[in-house]
């Protein structure tokens, strides 16, 4: 029983002599292949050539230092509590006297780990950070052979002092303007520290 009225009866037709040679069909196919040699290729030769990234692409994280080279992160835990994938863990420690050039605040993260296998690159840690410490960058997270290598510690996340990561394109003009105002405590480094106004006794 036919389910529709669109069915056709097909028969196997005897091939003609020229068709039996197969040569015209082969040449036709070769011509199509040959014509593609003159068309523009959509692929790029990564890693020699890199595709242009959006300025707000959310890739591998960076823990920033301030202008004086001190680590900005103060281990406040807001990124970890904001993280929907629970990828961030940290432990804090107290800054000792003489370490003002290393750590910005009196508390700092002694351990800071992001599990890149858990991370969904949503950028909520960046939004939650009150200290402009964590940013996502346009760098792609490298793949690895073991799971352990994908837990990034401070050795990978903290930017090096010689090659700082530029994140200004991720910040709005208002933020960049605000950062110029040194009267705000947020914008001061340890070099701008003034002696205390009130002293005990």
């Amino acid at each position, binding site marked *: 029983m036919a389910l529709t009225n669109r069915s056709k009866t097909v028969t196997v037709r005897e091939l003609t002599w020229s068709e039996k040679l197969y040569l015209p069909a082969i040449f036709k196919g070769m011509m199509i292949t040959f014509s593609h040699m003159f068309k523009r290729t959509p692929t790029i030769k990564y890693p020699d050539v890199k595709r242009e990234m959006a300025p707000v692409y959310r890739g591998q994280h960076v823990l920033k230092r301030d202008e004086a080279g001190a680590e900005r992160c103060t281990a*406040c835990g807001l990124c970890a509590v904001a993280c929907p994938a629970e990828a961030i863990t940290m432990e*804090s420690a107290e800054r000792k006297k003489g370490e003002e050039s290393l750590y910005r605040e009196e508390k700092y993260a002694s351990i800071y780990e992001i599990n890149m296998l858990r991370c969904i690159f949503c950028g909520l840690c960046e939004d939650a950070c009150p200290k402009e410490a964590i940013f996502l960058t346009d760098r792609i997270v490298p793949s690895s052979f073991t799971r352990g290598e994908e837990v990034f510690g401070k050795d990978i996340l903290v930017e090096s002092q010689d090659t700082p990561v530029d994140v200004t394109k991720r910040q709005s003009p208002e933020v960049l303007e605000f950062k110029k105002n040194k009267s705000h405590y947020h914008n001061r480094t340890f070099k701008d520290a003034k002696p205390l106004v009130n002293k*005990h006794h």
Partner: protein
Amino acid sequence: MAKVTIDGITIEVPDGTTILQAARMIGGDIVPPTMCYHSKLKTSGGYCRTCIVKVSKGSEKDPRPMPKPVASCRTTVMDGMEVQNLTSPDLLEARAGVVEFLLINHPLDCPVCDQAGECDLQNLAYENGKAGTRYEFPRREFERIDIGDKIQLHMNRCILCYRCVKTADQVTDGRVHGVINRGDVAEISTYIQNAVDNDFSGNVIDVCPVGALTDKTFRFKSRVWYTKPMDAHRNCTKCSGKVRLWYKGEEVLRVTGRRDQFGEVTEWICNECRFDKKKSSDWTIEGPAHIDSGSVISANHYESLKALKTDIERQRMALPHGQKVTLGHGALDPNNQ
């Protein structure tokens, strides 16, 4: 007995009750926030002005409204008094002004402060304050000092609520710290770097509404919202031994007194319980402590729905007929229908 109406809810209370206590008897959102008042401390209250309310009708005999907002912790009720708290936009504006004043010298160091997450001032500013500040002068800055080996004083954060002074006065024998100097230069201090050393001196940490007095044994160990509070007790010769343990994993990071729904310590605990007993084996665990669902500490901690339902039911009973109950803030807001 006196009949008092707070935000449209009438309650009969004994004579001599303050407006704040009457509001707390009703409960819910209409309870004015407090910073310096502490129900377990005599003569506390009257300094911070956060608990101000508008008295729109003085009493049955003298129905004139009071000319200015009054501190509800210090004003006793009169028969027929009508009080406005959340229902008066003027008052909320005035309270925002009080918050702005309290924050004038308070540093923005919540990311560093151990009190963040359970800080009364943080909650107050979020719920009643404004985002910006108009103050352009430098804030007061002090070096932190150690009061004894277990307590640290960050004078920067202090709002001069006098709670710790009253605790030391009324709970310990022989207080050695107090408020020295006056006005803008007033500060909490001991005389000539004296150590506060007393069996109950640790209670000043619990009563501090900000992070000015903190536990040195807990300093920078963890953010409070990563710790799990458990109620526990032990046989203590000095105090009731009823405490709250703050766990991270298997480890007790901190021991504090238990707090009631208004954030006030219910029973004083001794320094031995607070600082020296930090093993699970020292304690008999009663169970997880109840944390308000609005608190960041309750993030990722799950409780039964039953408690939530009782809470809604209690709010519904307190409301006039026909008004809608919503959870969280603004439940009694007239614009929130």
